[in-house]
């Protein structure tokens, strides 16, 4: 039996899927990415093996995806999350052409063709407005946990508009609404509706071609799904068996198995993890550039020394 693993290291959560050669999902695992994504990825991998009752030696191939894909030393390969989402979604629903993925700190709209190839995408990871963080912040001001968001909003009886774009400014707006006696569930629903509106704009920018699918943790939020469907005027496909949040990891493992298949067909050995060339240095995570190398900053420092 050949087993492969897909690990999707996102900005907020790290997700993993273990799959066998018959494309059956053997186990899924999930943890918060935290500030050390490599540690989170290793921990999620251990959880996954334990759940499936297998050992590291049983796993033939590991493919990583997401922001932290270059930070996993035991991977065989890394694949962008766009490719993974596209492939996983077209596997479940061949008729899907537009995918929306709402993450904790970003949002993506992807247009794909009938073979699951990425044709266009738009991404926002610069601003918390229009990402999961917007809802998390609003929930925090209302004293709710992330899991409460959906059930709470579903109790809303009237829509309150949240007009602030910025998640920080929305705080003042939420406090104002609360002080005028508006129910928290109505405010939560207002935030969901605002986020759905922003998501729709992003989807329009890739062409809004039918049919539509949603990936990410928001697939568990019934209020969000309803709000999006209302804005789209069309149904949204959700990956089956609660795999919505694991869509990226699912795509990664599908691609991993395809790679294994090719290696075996060519009569080549599957190499041990981490042996396929040198582990590349972080790209998306290379935020940690020493600013001293920057001329403007260096000049600023020189001025500071003079002043001091």
């Amino acid at each position, binding site marked *: 039996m050949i087993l492969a693993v897909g690990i999707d290291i996102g900005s907020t959560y790290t997700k993993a899927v273990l799959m066998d050669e018959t494309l059956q999902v053997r186990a899924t695992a999930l943890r918060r990415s935290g500030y050390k994504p490599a540690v989170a990825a290793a921990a999620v991998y251990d959880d996954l093996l334990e759940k499936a009752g297998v050992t590291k030696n049983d796993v033939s191939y590991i493919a990583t995806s997401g922001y932290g894909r270059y930070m996993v030393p035991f991977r065989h390969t890394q694949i962008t999350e766009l490719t993974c989402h596209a492939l996983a979604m077209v596997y479940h629903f061949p008729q899907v052409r537009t995918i929306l993925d709402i993450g904790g700190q970003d949002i993506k709209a992807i247009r794909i063709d009938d073979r699951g190839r990425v044709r266009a995408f738009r991404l926002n990871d610069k601003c918390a407005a229009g990402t999961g963080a917007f809802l998390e912040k609003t929930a925090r001001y209302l004293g709710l946990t992330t899991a409460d968001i959906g059930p709470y909003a579903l109790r809303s009886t009237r829509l309150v508009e949240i007009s602030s*774009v910025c998640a920080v*400014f929305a705080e003042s707006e939420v406090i104002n609404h609360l002080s005028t006696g508006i129910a928290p569930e109505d405010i939560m629903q207002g935030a969901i509706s605002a986020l759905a509106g922003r998501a729709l704009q992003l989807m329009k920018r890739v062409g809004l071609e039918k049919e539509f699918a949603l990936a990410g943790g928001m697939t568990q939020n019934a209020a969000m799904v309803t709000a999006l469907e209302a804005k789209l005027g069309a149904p949204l496909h959700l990956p089956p068996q609660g795999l919505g949040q694991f869509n990226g990891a699912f795509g990664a493992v599908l691609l991993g198995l395809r790679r294994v298949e090719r290696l075996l067909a060519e009569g080549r050995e599957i190499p041990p993890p981490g042996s396929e060339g040198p582990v590349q240095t972080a790209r998306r995570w290379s935020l940690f550039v020493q600013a001293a190398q920057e001329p403007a900053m260096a000049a600023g420092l020189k001025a500071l020394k003079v002043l001091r």
Partner: protein
Amino acid sequence: MEYVAGIDVGSTQAKGVILDERGNLVSKAIIDMETNMGAAAEEIFQRVLASANLEASAIVFTVATGYGRYRVTFGDLQVTEISCHARGALAEFPWTRTVLDIGGQDTKAIRIGDSGEVIDFAMNDKCAAGTGRFLGAASFALEMPLSELGPLALQSTRPVRITTTCTVFAETEIIGHLAKGHLPEDVLMGMHHSIATRCASLVRRVGLAPEVTFSGGVSRNQAMVVLLQEVLGVPLNVSAQAQFMGAIGAALYALDHVRAGRRPEHLVKEGAR
């Protein structure tokens, strides 16, 4: 002796001043905003009266400004914070042609003409990046009071570049840098640099013309002053009353009316708001 009051109800703090009929600052007060802007305005009014040892009846004219100016029920007239900030800055630094005001939730750049009129202004009212909230995020992540951020940042020797624009994500980024072993002062210097470059681009949108006066709560932060001077390439005027520029400007508008012989009751007849 007659007195005038200026009340500036901002997004995070309410400020009030009382001037005497010669325009001298008699008293000032500042409080953190509560949910109810009207109540905050009332409280700040009582505080400036108390610290000036005056009765409410001694105040002949009150001008309200700021985000919450229409909630100041006792205000005789409302003037936009743009006009008041420009007026306040000119009163102290008559050669001011550009005002940069960095507040708790908004940043304003105001361009002033040679006769003291407002020519242009730019504000970031859609996004909290480049406002005091960015430092608020640093204060939260580092568990350190706002007043200590500037002095600590100035001790930085190897500043970290902050790449996120969004205030919400900045908090995450700070904690990430600290987890990687960067020193708090280096991360803070990066935060200050990020705000300075963002505000400098706001200033350039209205056109940088010397002299530049820096006001608002953030102007009390020495690291911000130093970095902004560096980024803008000009020295900055910083008033000791930096947080009260708007309120002082409002009170000066009140004084104009008093000197012109106009009283609040006249305004009502004119149908002013």
